[in-house]
């Protein structure tokens, strides 16, 4: 019990520090909410106004952009028209919140060797990064490849593989 209390106190301290840090950029992001509400998990109304979603947050990103991910053809890393449209919507959102940093996670389907797929995932993540970097500061974007080690869908068919060949944009909070 004592340990738990200590942890909670530590967490409260971190929140306070984060609150201070947010004051640094004067005018850019909208003010943080005054009350601490638990992060909403259930589906939210599509309208941004009046929602409990914090603007500039992970949840806000997922609601506002076309998709958090772009998909690729087998053994390819070039961006389709659909992928570019998705990244355009991400770039527009990111332009509104210039303090937000992102990591792009590159993935491959299981039908490749392990080492090659790590390199292929890196290619895909960088393909998305390079496109976004024409619209926002490249310094805000980091990449990581998971190769075929973290599939989104477990199946061994073309439908599953198509969803696993992806580059996923993840908003980093607390930066």
């Amino acid at each position, binding site marked *: 019990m004592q340990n738990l209390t200590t942890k909670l106190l530590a967490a409260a301290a971190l929140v306070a520090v984060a609150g201070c840090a947010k004051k640094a950029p004067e005018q850019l992001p909208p003010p943080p909410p005054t009350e601490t509400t638990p992060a909403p998990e259930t589906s939210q109304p599509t309208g941004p106004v009046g929602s409990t979603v914090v603007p500039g947050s992970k949840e806000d990103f997922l609601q506002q952009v076309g998709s958090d991910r772009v998909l690729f053809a087998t053994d390819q*890393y070039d961006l389709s028209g659909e992928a570019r449209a998705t990244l355009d919507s991400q770039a527009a959102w990111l332009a509104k919140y210039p303090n937000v940093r992102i*990591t792009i996670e590159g993935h491959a389907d*299981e*039908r*490749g*060797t*392990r*080492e*090659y797929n*790590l*390199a*292929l995932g*890196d*290619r895909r*993540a*960088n*393909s998305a990064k*390079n496109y976004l970097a024409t619209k926002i500061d490249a310094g805000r974007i980091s990449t*990581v*490849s*998971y*190769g075929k*080690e*973290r*599939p*989104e*869908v*477990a*199946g*061994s068919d073309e439908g599953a593989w198509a969803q696993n060949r992806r580059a996923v944009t993840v908003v980093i909070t607390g930066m």
Partner: protein
Amino acid sequence: MKLFRTLLIAAAASAAPLPALAQSITVDITGGISSPMPIAIPSMPTPAIAPTPAGDTAALGRQVAEVITNDLRNSGLFQPIGPSALGQVSFAQVTAPDFPHWVGTGAQALVQGFAQANGDGTITVGCYLYDVFAGTEMTRQGFVVSPANWRRAAHKCADTVYTRLTGEGPYFDSRVVYVSETGPKTKRIKRLAIMDQDGANHRFLTNGQNIVLTPRFAPNQQTIVYMSFVNDRPRVYVYDVGSGRQRLVLDQANMTFAPRFSPDGRFIVFSMAVNGNTDIYRVPATGGAAQRLTTSPGIDTAASYSPDGSRIVFESDRGGTQQIYVMSADGSGQQRISFGSGRYATPVWSPRGDLIAFTKIGGGFRIGIMAPDGSGEKTLTDAWQDEGPSWSPNGRVIMFFRTAQGSGKADLWSVDLTGVNEKRVPTPLDGSDPAWGPLLP
């Protein structure tokens, strides 16, 4: 500390085998499994039952015979008749076999021996090989080990028998490091694990907190180089087996992966992805500046040294698809060697230098071999997804991993160069990325 000593039991030991025997009883390793040699391995008696921390010497003598039986069976070249199917041999018979009896069992060769406790806390395992029809001794050796290392004495005896009857180098007294896997396909937990080549003495080295991939032994086997996703930054680390500590090999932001030691242990060759382009580099194993070896805009990865350290085989998609290339160890003279249909990945140079094993992609994923000049290509396995070959210390057996369609569960398998003797390697959980170490010192 020297845990292991080899000694000749008697001056009469045949340092030079008799030519007549060499002709009378040998195993043809190239002919496949047409006729595995029947060989009898009775339980090894003890001159006096004595307790040891690993059990008494009578029990050890039986277990040693069982391990030898299992090793020889796994090689695919023998049809062993083990201790469970044979009666007890007296200590006096170890050096004076009842040959007419053994002729009756159908065995062509006979392995006998003994387990003896020495005064100093060690045990001696005696190992004798006989030609049953000729009624003669072919070789004998003794192994002094601490009782905890009794399995190594058994593997050494099996290696002695294998080497004497096939003319090939030994490989049973060796270990494997690999990636132990468990959990659902989308969230697999991957841990480094180490074990004897037959699956015994299994031990986990990492706790599964980070994804770990592609472990490879250093030549001295005291360290393992591998890739870990520590802090979600996939990079190459060196793990010290003795202390359990790990060290980042190259401190920079890019992904580094697919590492492997040079045969002299002085360098680590690896791949690094920079802005979507993957090339091969090498770095001194003790740390320092990395030297870039390839500059193609394609994916250059899976580098593996020739056993003399002068050349490196690797895969590259610079020509459009994954193919195998060879270059000098300094990166000069890059030359494609694979020209068959399909794609080629993860080339690994045999410790004998005569062959390169690889993953062949086309329809399925299969394990294949070819000469270093690209000639003599041969496919050894046929399953939905086999990949990641690794050579036995004698270059006669290849371990790899096989992934199941759908579930994504992977297991370790071995196959010999004939492609006929394919066996699953037992592991407590699922397994991938095996790396077979050199013969133990």
